[in-house]
């Protein structure tokens, strides 16, 4: 099931972005602040009405899909960690099953286990730390078993151990055929863990391709306006000032 954007334009935030994403791989969306990364992700999730262009899943526009069908296929995790009420963790994760109209224990337990939060299931949301909250909210997405996982900065509140555990988990999901799209600020994570990187700059596509090409130091200098270089071996790269 391919996810594609054609000539996607969202007023003042994205202009004419076209891309085709393949399932079974991890795609990172990178770019400086205000480049339109979150907007692109939200549009791919079918939550923003484009001024021009379309977002389509296997050729069917996500805008005209029934909301529930779209919700079964596209799991979306925003950057903001908003939990309005002090509800139990398990109820939050069960919300992920809402598009399916059930609260099946199997996928909910699997999501809790995958993010190492089964022991928090009975805890209340407001008693969680920032990192725990981030994992609970991602577990909510996983519990819905969507074909595509679209996550905005899922690593931001996590310590390094949980960042790596999460990336391993997302890799396993991709290996099972899910499409993963992540907005990432950390270019080293994008370089080491993504299969493909999309670089946005000022709402336009600045680079798109394999990590080594899309995150070439020249591209980074052009887009982020800082001289840098990569050190280390492929898969274990680190970015240092140029």
């Amino acid at each position, binding site marked *: 099931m391919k996810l594609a954007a054609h000539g996607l334009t969202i007023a003042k935030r994205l202009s004419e972005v076209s891309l085709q994403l393949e399932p079974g791989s991890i795609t990172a969306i990178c770019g400086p602040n205000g480049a339109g990364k979150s907007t692109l992700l*939200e549009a791919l*999730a*079918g*939550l923003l009405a484009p001024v021009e262009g379309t977002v389509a899943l296997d050729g069917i526009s996500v805008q005209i899909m029934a*909301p*529930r*069908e*779209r*919700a*079964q296929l*596209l*799991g*979306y*995790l*925003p950057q*903001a960690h*908003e*939990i*309005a*009420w*002090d*509800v*139990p963790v398990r*109820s*939050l994760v069960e*919300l*992920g099953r*809402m*598009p399916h109209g059930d609260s099946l224990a199997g996928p909910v337990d699997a999501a809790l286990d995958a993010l190492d939060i089964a022991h928090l299931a009975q805890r*209340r949301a407001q008693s969680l730390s920032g990192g725990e909250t981030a994992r609970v*909210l991602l577990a*909510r997405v996983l519990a*819905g078993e969507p074909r595509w996982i679209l996550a905005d900065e899922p690593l931001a509140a996590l310590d390094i151990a949980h960042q790596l555990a999460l990336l391993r988990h997302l890799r396993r999901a991709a290996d099972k055929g899910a499409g993963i799209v992540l907005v990432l600020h950390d270019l080293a994570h994008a370089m080491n863990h993504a299969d493909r990187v999309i670089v946005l700059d000022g709402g336009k596509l600045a680079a798109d391709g394999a990590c080594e090409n899309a995150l070439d130091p020249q591209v980074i200098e052009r887009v982020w306006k800082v001289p840098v270089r990569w050190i280390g071996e492929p898969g274990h790269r680190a970015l240092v000032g140029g």
Partner: protein
Amino acid sequence: MNRAVLVFGGLLLVALPLSLLAGRVWLDPASTPNASLILAELRLPRALLAIVIGAGLGAGGAAMQGYLRNPLADPGLFGIAPGAALGAVAALWFGYAASPWLLPAFALIGAGGAMALLAAIAGRTGGIALFTLAGLMVASLAGALTALAISMAPNAFAMSEIVMWLNGALTDRSWREVWLAAPLVGLGVILLWRSGRSLDALTLGEPVARSLGIDPQRLLWLLIVGIGLTVGASVAVAGIIGFVGLIVPHLVRPLTDSRPSQLVVPSALAGALLVLVADSVVRILPLVTELRLGIALSLLGAPFFLWLLLRMRRGLA
């Protein structure tokens, strides 16, 4: 069925017979003359009306707090109660109140007008911020027109009637008001109850709720019609009775897991209990004239609101 339903349902079953006996004159079914007539024609309809409007206001408050994700929200803030009040005030102003059906009918038309205005302004986008602002605008417009009606009242009697009526009460209500309000409030509570799962999804914010397949427009319509029926019908038969919708979800929440869907039905029961008890208390108080129920609940509600604010400020500090 959750714990809160059992607790508030049980308390309501205890409170109802007590409230039938309570009053300026305590009723002894064995010895009071005409006890059965007083019970059947005065106390029972009044108690049932208290239950009906309390249930509507409680469920409305729970749904409203869930929708706005704000524990300080009250259905009265969003234009429908002031709209209904304006309709009733118009009936009093024109001297139609002598007819038994015209005042509630005008109030329902006022509530319907406020709902239509809310839907026209905010209904197409389904956005929560726009809805809140539209509600505040409708509330202040209805409030201004009500003030205008009072200041231009045709005579002193009409003015005092309007002012008295605005401070809601259940005095001298009969079965007629029960039959009018009960079906409307019942339907409204069902609509609000049906919005529960969508309100649960809103716990994680509007974008997540939409990504989970919630249709924000449908949810907004459910709420406008649900609140319109519950609050509009309550104001139509009893005048403005504030703070019930604000207070009740806070009494219920500790007994539940705080999910908005788990609050609607218990809040209806707790609202019924609160209004029933408050109305019994105003009947018992040894005052020269009976304290208006709307004033009594405001005297209770305002300090409660302040306590909530202080508690929230401590939580933030």
